[in-house]
C-alpha cells in the first residue's frame, strides 16, 4: 500500500490527483460526444486557440497565470466559430477545426511578437506541456468548480445531446433543439479545455478528450456504457499515471497519457477476441 499512500502523503500530489481526476472525468464524458460527432481533432484545435487567447492576454499586460482566464472568452468564440462553419457549410469537422486552429495559433505568435522587449519572458514550455504537480490550491478550486459545472450540465443534457449526435434531423423532428445543444457542447468543451491546459498543457489536453472516449467506444455496446467505460478509463489512467510517474521519476502528464494509450490498446485487443 506504501506504493500509493507514500506519494499521496504530499499536498502537491493530492492536489495533482484531484485535478487529474476532475479533468479526466469531465473530458471523458464530453469526449464521447465530441468523438461521436467526428470532432476528435477539436481538442487540439481549441487548445491551440487557447494559446492565441493567452498571447492576447500577455500582450495586454497580464501575467501567464491570469492570461489563461482571458483565454476563456477567446477560445469559446473560436469554438462557436467552428460550430457556425460546420452548420453553415458542407465542410467536415477536421477542416473547420484546422482553419481555426491555424488562425488562432498564428494570432498567438503574432501577439507574442508584438510584446515590448522589456516585457517578462514567457515560459512557453510550461504552456505547451503544463505542470499538474504545480497546481496551486486556487487553481485546483477553479478546476474543480469548472469540471463539476460542466459535468452536471452535460449529464443533465445527456439524453438530448445523444439524440442530436446520433441523427440531428431525427432529433429535430422529435423537438430536440439540435443547434443550441451543439453550440453549448462546443462552448463547454472550450471552457473545459482552457482549464485543463492549466494542468496538462496545450499539447496533451486533447488526449484526455479523445483516448478514454475512443477506448470506451470500442468496448461499449450502448452510448451509456461507452460513457461509463470512458470515465473509468480516464480516471484510472490519471490516478495510475500520477503515482507511476512519482515512482519512476518521469513527467506526470506524459505518463498519464501513455497509461490512457495502454488502456486503448487493451480495449482494442479485447474487442478483437
Amino acid at each position, binding site marked *: 500500500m506504501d506504493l500509493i499512500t507514500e506519494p499521496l502523503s504530499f499536498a502537491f500530489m493530492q492536489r495533482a490527483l484531484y485535478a487529474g481526476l476532475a479533468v479526466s472525468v469531465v473530458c471523458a464524458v464530453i469526449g464521447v460526444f465530441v468523438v461521436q460527432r467526428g470532432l476528435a481533432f477539436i481538442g487540439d484545435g481549441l487548445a491551440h486557440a487557447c494559446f492565441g487567447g493567452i498571447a492576447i492576454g500577455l500582450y495586454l499586460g497580464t501575467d501567464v497565470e491570469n492570461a489563461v482566464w482571458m483565454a476563456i472568452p477567446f477560445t469559446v468564440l473560436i469554438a462557436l466559430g467552428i460550430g457556425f462553419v460546420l452548420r453553415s457549410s458542407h465542410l467536415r469537422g477536421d477542416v473547420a477545426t484546422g482553419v481555426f486552429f491555424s488562425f488562432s495559433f498564428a494570432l498567438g505568435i503574432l501577439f507574442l511578437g508584438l510584446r515590448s522587449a522589456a516585457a517578462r519572458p514567457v515560459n512557453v514550455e510550461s504552456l505547451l506541456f503544463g505542470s499538474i504537480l504545480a497546481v496551486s490550491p486556487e487553481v485546483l478550486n477553479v478546476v474543480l468548480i469548472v469540471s463539476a459545472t460542466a459535468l452536471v450540465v452535460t449529464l443533465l443534457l445527456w*439524453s438530448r445531446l445523444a439524440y442530436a449526435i446520433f441523427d440531428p*434531423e431525427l432529433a429535430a423532428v422529435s*423537438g430536440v433543439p439540435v443547434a443550441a445543444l451543439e453550440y453549448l457542447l462546443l462552448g463547454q468543451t472550450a471552457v473545459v479545455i482552457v482549464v485543463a491546459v492549466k494542468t496538462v498543457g496545450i499539447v496533451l489536453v486533447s488526449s484526455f478528450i479523445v483516448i478514454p472516449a475512443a477506448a470506451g*467506444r470500442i468496448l461499449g*455496446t*450502448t*452510448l451509456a456504457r461507452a460513457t461509463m467505460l470512458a470515465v473509468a478509463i480516464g480516471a484510472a489512467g490519471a490516478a495510475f499515471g500520477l503515482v507511476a510517474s512519482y515512482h519512476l521519476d518521469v513527467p506526470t502528464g506524459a505518463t498519464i497519457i501513455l497509461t490512457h494509450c495502454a488502456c486503448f490498446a487493451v480495449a482494442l485487443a479485447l474487442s478483437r477476441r
Partner: protein
Amino acid sequence: MSDVPVGGGEPQAPTPAWATSLERREHAQKLKQTRPDPGAPRVLDVDHVSIERGGKLIVDDVSFFIPKGEFVCLCGPNGAGKSTLLKAVMGLLEPTRGKVRIGGEPPERARHKVGYVPQRKSYSMDFPARSVELITAAVRGRWPAHVKPEERERARAVLAKVGGEKLLDKPLAGLSGGETQRVFLARALVTEPALVILDEPTAGVDVSGRAELLRLMVEISRSDELAAILVTHNLGAVAHTAERIVYLEAGRLLGWGLPDELLGQSSLTALAFAGTDHARHRDEE
C-alpha cells in the same frame, strides 16, 4: 413538362366513408377521379407553399393534400425541391409563403403525429446503439440511458409488426440495409402517427430486400389507414403501389394524380425507368 395534366377537372364524386384505401383507389380510378375527394378528412395539407433559401426559390407555390389512409409517392428529379418540402412538412423549415397543416395543426405542434423513416446515409452509422434504444428514443423524444421493461415490450411489439422481432437487441451498426430500414420503420410507427414520411427508404437496400420492404410499408399503411409519403427516385418500383403521385420539378408542382394517368407523360416515364435495365436497353438502341 407543361403538358402534364394537374388533374381535378372532373366533378369529384363523394367517396363512401367505409372504403379501405385500396377500395378508394379502385373507386377513384373507376370515376377517373384524379385527385382525392376534397371533402375527405385531410391528414396533410400543403397550401400554396413557397420556400426561399439564400435568395433562391426552392419550392414555388405548391399545393396538395393527403387524406387519411392514402399512400402517395412524392417524386421528381434531383433539385426538384422534394427534400426542402419534406423539411417544411416536418416542421424543420418555415415556409416563406403558404402553410403546412398536419391534422389541422402546424407541424411544430404536430410532431407526435408524424413518423419519419430517414435515408440510411443520414445518421451516424457507427453510433453505439441497439434497435430497442432507437425505438424508445422516438417515444421519449430523447436518447435513453436505460430502457424500462414496458418500453422494451412496446419496442418488441412494433418490431414484430414489421417482421423484425429478432432485431430488438442487435447493434444498429451490424444490421443489413433491409434490417436497418425495418428498425427505422418500427421507430416511425411506435408513436402511432397519422402520417408516415418515407425518405428514399430503399436506398442502400439490396434488390430483393427493396420489393419486400416496399410491400411491407404499403401493407402497414393500408392496414393501419395511415397516410404515407414515399419520396423516391425509383418511381418504376412504386408507381403501381402508390395511390397517387405528386410530381415536382424545379420547385413546381407539375403533376398530382393517379399513377396510370401521370405515367403516360414522357418525363415521368423517363423518371420511372431511370437506372433500370429498360433505360439501358433503350439507351443502347
